[in-house]
C-alpha cells in the first residue's frame, strides 16, 4: 500500500494541531508498513532537521526530497518556495486574493511568527495553494501510489488535481472547516474549495462526530461518505518528572488557557469565567499562553473586568516552556467555540493536569474523565473551575483516570482505521 499524502504542515513547521496530527498519523502508518510520500509546500530549513536525514534532491531540481530515520516508510517531498511555475491568477481574482490574504493573517495562519522558519506564508495564500496543486500534480507523475490523502483545504485543490491526473481514489481528511475558524463570517473562496474537495473526494475522514455533522449539514455531503477517525496522542510522557518542582509549595493556584488567542478558541469566555472565580476566591492566577489576533482584545478585556493583575499573558510558548507551564498549572481550560478535535487537553492530561473542555469540541467525544461545559455557559465554567480548586479529591480523580484514559488514545488505532478506509476506497474504484 502506497499513499500520496498532501499536507501543509509537519513538525517543526507547525502553527497548530494539523502538523502534530500529520506527524502522529504518518508515524503510525509507517509502523503499519504503509509507504507514504508526504508533499509539503515549502523548502525544508535544515536548521531544524537534526532528526531528519536529508536525501539527495529529487529528480526535479525544484524539489527537495528527504526522509526521517524514524519514519523509514515516509518520504518527504517539499516544494521550493522560490519556484513560480503557476502564473498569478487572473486580474478578476485579485480582489479575492486581497480578502484571502487578510483572512489568513487574521486566522493565525501566519506561520512565520510561530514556526520561525523564515518562510513567508501569509503572502498570497490563494496563489500558494494553486502553485502547490500544480507542483503536486507534476510530482505525482513520477510517483507510484494507490491512494491520495489530503489534509485540510489548502491541499484539496492539489488532491483533486492529482486524482484527476492519476485516476486514483482521493481521501480528504478534515481537521477543521471554515465554520470552525471563522464562525459566521465564512470566506466564500475557502468554503468553495472545501466544498469542491469534499464532493470530489471518494471518502472523507472527519476528526470527530462534531466535524462530521458540520460536513453533512453545512457542505451537503451524504453521511455514508464521511467516516470519523479520532486523533491519537503522542505520549512524550511526563517521564522526566522533576520531583523538586512539584514539591514546592505555592499559595497560588494557576488556571491555564493554552492555544491560539483567536475567536475560535473562546478567550473572552475564559476571562469572563475568571472574573467570576476571582469574585469569590483569592490566590488564583489565570495564565493565557499563546498568541493570536485577539490577544490585544483579551488584554483589554482583562483590564476592563478589573482582573488585569490576575491574568498573565505569556505569548506563544514552545518546547520546554510548555512543559514548565503544565507543571505549574492546577487546571487547564479549553473554552473553544468550535473545536473539530482539540489535542491540547490530551497533552494537559498527559502532563497530569485536569481539564475542563467545551462541549463544542471533538475531544469531548473521546474523553470521559474531563469536566465539560458549553463554551457560552460562563457561570458553569466558573463553578467548575472553583470546584477543582476548592475540592482537591476532584482534581485528583480527574488526573488519575484522565491520564489513564489518554493512554488509550493511540495513533495506531487511527492509522488502522485510515488503512481500512484506503482499502475500501481502492475496492470502490
Amino acid at each position, binding site marked *: 500500500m502506497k499513499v500520496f499524502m498532501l499536507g501543509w504542515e509537519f513538525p517543526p513547521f507547525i502553527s497548530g494541531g494539523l502538523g502534530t496530527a500529520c506527524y502522529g498519523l504518518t508515524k503510525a502508518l509507517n509502523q503499519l508498513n504503509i509507504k507514504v510520500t508526504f508533499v509539503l509546500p515549502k523548502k525544508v530549513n535544515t536548521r531544524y532537521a537534526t532528526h531528519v536525514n536529508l536525501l539527495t534532491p529529487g529528480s526535479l531540481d525544484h524539489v527537495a526530497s528527504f526522509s526521517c530515520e524514524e519514519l523509514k516508510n515516509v518520504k518527504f517531498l517539499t516544494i521550493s518556495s522560490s519556484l513560480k511555475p503557476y502564473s498569478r491568477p487572473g486580474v478578476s481574482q485579485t480582489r479575492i486574493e486581497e480578502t484571502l490574504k487578510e483572512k489568513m493573517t487574521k486566522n493565525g495562519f501566519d506561520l512565520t511568527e510561530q514556526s520561525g522558519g523564515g518562510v513567508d506564508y501569509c503572502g498570497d495564500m490563494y496563489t500558494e495553494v494553486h502553485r502547490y496543486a500544480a507542483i503536486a500534480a507534476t510530482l505525482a507523475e513520477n510517483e507510484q501510489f494507490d491512494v491520495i490523502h489530503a489534509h485540510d483545504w489548502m491541499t484539496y485543490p492539489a488532491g483533486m488535481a492529482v486524482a484527476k491526473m492519476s485516476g486514483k481514489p482521493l481521501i480528504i481528511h478534515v481537521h477543521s472547516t471554515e465554520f470552525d475558524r471563522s464562525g459566521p463570517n465564512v470566506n466564500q473562496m475557502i468554503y468553495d474549495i472545501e466544498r469542491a474537495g469534499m464532493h470530489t473526494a471518494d471518502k472523507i475522514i472527519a476528526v470527530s462526530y462534531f466535524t462530521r455533522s458540520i460536513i453533512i449539514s453545512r457542505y451537503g455531503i451524504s453521511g455514508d461518505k464521511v467516516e470519523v477517525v479520532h486523533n491519537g496522542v503522542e505520549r512524550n510522557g511526563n517521564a522526566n518528572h522533576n520531583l523538586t518542582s512539584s514539591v514546592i509549595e505555592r499559595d497560588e493556584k494557576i488556571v491555564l488557557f493554552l492555544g491560539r488567542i483567536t475567536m475560535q478558541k473562546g478567550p473572552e469566555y475564559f476571562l469572563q469565567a475568571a472574573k467570576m472565580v476571582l469574585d469569590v476566591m483569592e490566590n488564583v492566577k489565570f495564565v493565557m499562553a499563546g498568541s493570536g489576533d485577539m490577544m490585544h482584545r483579551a488584554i483589554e478585556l482583562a483590564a476592563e473586568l478589573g482582573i488585569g493583575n490576575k491574568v498573565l499573558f505569556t505569548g506563544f510558548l514552545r518546547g520546554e516552556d510548555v512543559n514548565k507551564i503544565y507543571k505549574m498549572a492546577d487546571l487547564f481550560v479549553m473554552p473553544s467555540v468550535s473545536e473539530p478535535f482539540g489535542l491540547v487537553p490530551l497533552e494537559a492530561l498527559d502532563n497530569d493536569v485536569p481539564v475542563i473542555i467545551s462541549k463544542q469540541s471533538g475531544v469531548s467525544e473521546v474523553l*470521559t474523565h474531563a469536566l*465539560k461545559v458549553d463554551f457560552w455557559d460562563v457561570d*458553569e465554567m466558573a*463553578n467548575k473551575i*472553583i470546584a477543582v480548586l*476548592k475540592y482537591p*479529591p*476532584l482534581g485528583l480523580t480527574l488526573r488519575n*483516570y484522565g491520564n489513564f484514559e489518554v493512554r488509550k488514545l493511540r495513533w495506531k488505532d487511527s492509522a488502522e482505521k485510515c488503512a481500512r478506509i484506503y482499502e475500501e476506497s481502492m475496492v470502490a474504484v
Partner: protein
Amino acid sequence: MPSVCFYFQLHQPSRLRHYTVFDSNELYFDDSKNAAICKKVANKCYLPANRLMLEIINKYDGKFKIAYSITGTLLEQLQLYAPEVISTFDALARTGCVEFLAETYYHSLSFLYSRNEFVEQVNKHTELIKYLFGQTPKIFRNTELIYNNDLAMLIEAMGRFDAILAEGADHILGYRSPNFVYRPKNCNRLKLLMKNYSLSDDIAFRFSNRGWNQWPLTADKFARWVGNVNGNGNLVNLFMDYETFGEHQWEDTGIFDFMRHLPEEILRHPDNNFKTPSEVVESYQPVGAIDVPHLISWADTERDLSAWLGNAMQSNAIHELYRLEKKIKKTANEKIITDWRKLQTSDHFYYMCTKYFADGDVHKYFNPYDSPYDSYINFMNVLNNLSVRCTKPKIESTPGTHLVHLPKTVLR
C-alpha cells in the same frame, strides 16, 4: 417443600437540583424532577404491580405472601406526588399477607459512619411504617443489603428485631446454600436470611435477556427450578427491586404475566408455599453460623462497597458529610437536620461512581448527572452551603414543615 420468600425493595432519592458555588439559597432539591420521576415510576411500576399483587393475594386466599421495604424518602414523595400508591399499599397491608421491613429512613450508609444516626434513622422509619400501615417491622434490611457481623450485633442489641437480611454471596457462603436460615456470628437470638441471588437475578436481571440460554423464562420453568431446592433447603429467598416490574423489565416483556402465573405453578406442588420473612423465621431454625467480618452488599459483581466509596471523591464527600453531624444536630433546626439527612441517601454517592463510567455503562437508572464529576461538584456545593447555615444564626421565616411548602416549587 421449599417456602418462597419474596421481598421487594422500593426507593427513590431526593435528587439535588443544579447547585453552583454561586447559589446561596436553601432549596437544594429538584422537586419538579423528583415529582416527575416519582409519578412516572408510580404509573409504570408501583400502581400496576400493587394491583397485581392484590389480585394474586385475593385469588389465592391468603396463600400468596410477600414483603416490602420502602424507604422514608420514597414514602414522603409518594405522599406528595402519588398518594394513590400509599392507599394501595394500605390495602395490601390489610390483607394480612404483606409484611413491611425496617431500614434506614433515608436509605443511608449511616451504619458505616455514625451508629447514633443509624439508630435514629431506623427508629424514624419504623415510626412511619407504623403510622402508615399499622405494622411494627420485625425484620431489618440495611441499605443495599450492606452487612457484616457488627451490623447484626447492633440490630440484635436494638432488641426488637427477629432477623436481618443479607446477600447470599458465594465468597461468604462457600459450600453452603442460601436456602436455609442461619445465625449471624456472635448473635444469640437474631436470625439471618440470605438472598438466593441466582434465582432472584433470573427474574430481576435476566428475565428479558434474549441472549440468555434460558430465555424465555416461564412460570412453570421457574417453579421447576424452585422445586429443585427440595431436599437441599427450606426456603428460597427472592429479594429484588420492585422496579423489576414495569421499569427494569418493561410490561411488554411479559413480567407481569409471569408473576400472575407464578403462584399457581409454585403451589401446584402441595409441599410448596409462600412465607413472609417473619413466618420463615418462625418456621425454621438456624442450621449454622455465618461469619462476615468485612462488609458485603448486593451491588454489582463485586458485592462490596466500591459503588459508593470506591474513589477519592466519594470518600471525601461522605466523610465531610458525617463530619458535620455534631454541628448540624446542635442547631436543633429541623429543616437543617432534614436537609442533612436527605444528603445521606446512598444514591448521591452512587452517582459519583467512576467504576463503569468510561465504558458508557454508568449506573444510569434515573441518574440526573452526565458524569460522576458533575455529581460530586454539585453535592459539595450544597454541603458547603449547609455547613454555612449551621454557623449563622438562623431565623426560620417559612412556617410549617418542609413538606408543606414543597408544592410551591412543584407548581413552577
